[in-house]
C-alpha cells in the first residue's frame, strides 16, 4: 500500500511541478484572472447592489445561486447525520 501511495505522490507531484512554470507571477495585477471579470465587479458593485462589501455583493447577488447550493449542502449533511446516527428511543438511550 505504501508503494502505491509513493507512486501516486510522485506522479501527481511531477504533474504539478511541470505545470507551475508558465503560471502568472504571484500578485501580478495584469494577469487574466484580475483583468477579465473582476474589474467590473469592483467598479459596479456599489452602485448596482448598494453593498459596500464586494465579496457579499458577489456572493449574495451576482452568484447567489451558489450560496443557495451551499446552504443545501449544509442541510444535506445535517439530515444525513440524522439518518445514519439516530437510534430508537426505547432501550438504547440517546443515540448521538
Amino acid at each position, binding site marked *: 500500500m505504501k508503494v*502505491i501511495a509513493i507512486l501516486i505522490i510522485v506522479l501527481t507531484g511531477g504533474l504539478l511541478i511541470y505545470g*507551475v512554470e508558465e503560471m502568472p507571477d504571484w500578485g501580478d495585477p495584469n494577469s487574466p484572472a484580475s483583468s477579465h471579470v473582476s474589474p467590473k465587479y469592483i467598479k459596479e458593485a456599489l452602485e448596482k447592489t448598494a453593498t459596500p462589501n464586494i*465579496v457579499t455583493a458577489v456572493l449574495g447577488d451576482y452568484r447567489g445561486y451558489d450560496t443557495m447550493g451551499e446552504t443545501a449542502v449544509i442541510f444535506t449533511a445535517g439530515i444525513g447525520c440524522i439518518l445514519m446516527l439516530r437510534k430508537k428511543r426505547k432501550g438504547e438511550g440517546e443515540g448521538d
Partner: protein
Amino acid sequence: MLEYIVSKYNFWVYVILLLIGLYAMVGKKNLVKKLIGMNIFQSAVILFYVSIGVKKGGATVPIFLGNAHAAHGHGNAIIDVASYINPLPHVLMLTAIVVSIATTGVALAVLILIFRRYKTLELDEIIKIRKDTGV
C-alpha cells in the same frame, strides 16, 4: 533558479501541502488519519485559490470603507481597480470551505457506524474481520 522558486512561492507551498494530504489519504492505515489527510488536501486547494486573487502594490481588501455614504448609489467617487484585490476567489472559497466541513461531518458519522460494527478503526484489522466473517 532561486528567482524561479521565489517568484512563485505560493504555488510551492500549496503543492507540498497537497502531496502531504494525498499521501495521508492513500498510505495511512488508520481511518481517522485518512480523514485528516482529506482535510489537508482540501485546504491546499482552498489556499491555492485564495492566493490567485492577490495584487501587489498595496492593494487592500475589497470593502469600501468611509466613503461608502458619499458614493452610495451615485458613483461619484472614482474607484481605482488596482487598489482592491480580486473578490471572486474569496467568494468561491467560502462555498468550498463549507463543502469541506460538510463532507468531514458526514465522513465522521460513517466512522461512528464503522466503529459500532467492527469495534476498531484500523484498516488491516477491519479487513481481517471481514474476511473471517465472510462479509
